[in-house]
């Protein structure tokens, strides 16, 4: 039932005592990094001010901006020779964010992912195929090491090439996939096209699904299409990657591993804790990381704590399915991006005007992005030129976003001009 029974079912008072202890250690550890050393000195922060886990609120927040400003190693708290890996975000909007890991950190992370996988019923007898991109994207190596720790036979198929994925699933008897929801739908469709019934013709029984917001309805549809149980997983590179929170077999909320992080949910405006059960921004403090501890990291992800105990017996609190962002970051097809990245490309073409609208919606089980942009005054009646413009801009967007958006040139003045802050993004996906 449990990968680490004692830790997973620890009574709350004990768990909170463990958190407070680890938080004190974390403050001590963090103060070895140039950034926190200076900050703690300025603010008079020391480990002994933590009497209980609630004292975490006395600590300053850390933001993505702080990570960027201290790029690449300003927050590293151990000598670099003790570090064995780094992961980095794509960083197209400035400096990337870099997270550096020691061997101990990687071991802990692998354990965290193994715990998640064990929780949803995966064992060393399973064949686990990872359709995540490997490399900097933490969904690749993160799940790889976790699945190896679990003892499963791993198939590091990486992203794309549906026919090859399906061949592996059939030939190797894959029982579990790690996959983003839009690709899960796509893969199921390709199977049907090839006359394969995933429920009958494959051994698939479980999928771990994350990196892209999705609704309960979408999950049920994917489960039905593939004949599997699908579990929602949550992670972010700043918090290692996958494994931060994961659904248990109840499929009702994601357990946050509170021996790894201290989780708070705050009002993104006031930064005060919201009453239990209310939606706010998730703030996480690592309490189990040595190379790069992060104190009160503002994830920008919006969620709420689910009240009550989970029937699965785990005492670690659950958060609801994620409900959006407190900034304008868009998560689509496993890629994170900001509207400004799109805007920069559009504005680089004098034939295009200043008005644009990004619409995201679910079409045939796939999350699609449509970018409408107005033409400028320079419209020239040249058909070939317009088509070339459309092609060029689409290609540039693809290079930036790593997937191909639909681009639509529209007449000048045809997009709604809004008063005040322009509405640039319409997200029509149903997430709740």
């Amino acid at each position, binding site marked *: 039932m449990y990968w680490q029974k004692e830790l997973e079912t620890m009574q709350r008072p004990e768990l909170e005592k463990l958190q407070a202890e680890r938080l004190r250690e974390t403050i001590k550890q963090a103060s070895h990094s140039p950034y926190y050393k200076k900050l703690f000195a300025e603010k008079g922060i020391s480990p002994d001010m933590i009497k209980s886990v609630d004292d975490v609120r006395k600590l300053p927040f850390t933001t993505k901006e702080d990570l960027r400003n201290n790029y690449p190693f300003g927050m590293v708290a151990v000598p670099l020779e003790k570090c064995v890996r780094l992961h980095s975000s794509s960083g197209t909007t400035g400096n990337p964010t870099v997270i550096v890991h020691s061997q101990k950190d990687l071991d802990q992370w692998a354990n965290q992912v193994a715990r998640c996988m064990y929780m949803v019923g995966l064992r060393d007898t399973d064949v686990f195929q990872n359709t995540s991109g490997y490399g900097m994207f933490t969904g690749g190596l993160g799940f790889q090491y976790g699945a190896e720790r679990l003892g499963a036979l791993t198939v590091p198929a990486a992203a794309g090439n549906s026919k090859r994925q399906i061949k592996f699933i059939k030939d190797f008897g894959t029982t579990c996939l790690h996959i983003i929801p839009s690709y899960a739908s796509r893969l199921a469709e390709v199977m049907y096209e090839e006359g394969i019934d995933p429920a009958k013709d494959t051994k698939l029984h479980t999928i771990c699904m994350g990196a892209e917001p999705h609704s309960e309805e979408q999950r049920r549809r994917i489960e039905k299409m593939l004949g599997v149980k699908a579990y929602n997983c949550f992670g972010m590179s700043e918090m290692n990657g996958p494994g931060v929170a994961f659904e248990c077999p109840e499929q009702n909320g994601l357990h946050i591993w509170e021996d790894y992080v201290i989780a708070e949910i705050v009002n993104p405006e006031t930064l005060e804790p919201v009453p239990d059960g209310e939606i706010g921004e998730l703030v996480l403090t690592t309490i189990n990381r040595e190379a790069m501890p992060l104190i009160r990291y503002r994830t920008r992800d919006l969620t709420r704590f689910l009240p009550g105990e989970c029937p699965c017996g785990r005492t670690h609190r659950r958060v609801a399915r994620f409900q959006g962002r407190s900034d304008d970051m868009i998560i689509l097809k496993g890629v994170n991006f900001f509207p400004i990245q799109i805007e920069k490309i559009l504005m680089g073409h004098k034939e295009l005007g200043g008005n644009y609208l990004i619409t995201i919606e679910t079409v045939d089980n796939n999350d699609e992005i449509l970018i409408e942009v107005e033409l400028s005054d320079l419209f020239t*009646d040249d058909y070939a030129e317009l088509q070339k413009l459309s092609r060029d801009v689409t290609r540039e967007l693809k290079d930036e976003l790593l997937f191909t958006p639909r681009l*639509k040139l*529209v007449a000048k003045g045809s997009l709604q001009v809004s008063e005040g802050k322009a509405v640039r993004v319409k997200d029509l996906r149903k997430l709740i």
Partner: protein
Amino acid sequence: MTINQISVFLENKYGTLNQVLGLLAGAEIGVIAATVADTQEFGIMRLIVSEPRRAYAVLKENNVSVHLNDVFAIALDRNCAGTFRDTTELLTKGGLNIEYMYSFACGGKLVLVLRTNNTEGTRDVVRRNGLNYLTENDLSKL
């Protein structure tokens, strides 16, 4: 030797063509010929109108993506594929490519509206071969 043509960018959206024509009608501008070329995403409507400059101003004022350019209008004997062919042959021999062309019938003549890749070269061909081109003035009498 050339006439003004109005080009309008049309979104592939319900009612856009109607809206543009409504603006012209409101300004009491006559349409002599029109053609719409389209892709899946957008279309371009090209128009020969009674008062191209005023039409351009009206559309521009109303935030329509519009462009004014020069095209040739060449009158042929009606219903005669031969004269049509003769004309295209002259252009071909002049090393010209036709970018687009449409036609309308008027007073027993077939009028070809065309744009090539080289306006100056086309002027030469028209002049040297004495092709029957129409001017803005001719059009206003139609």
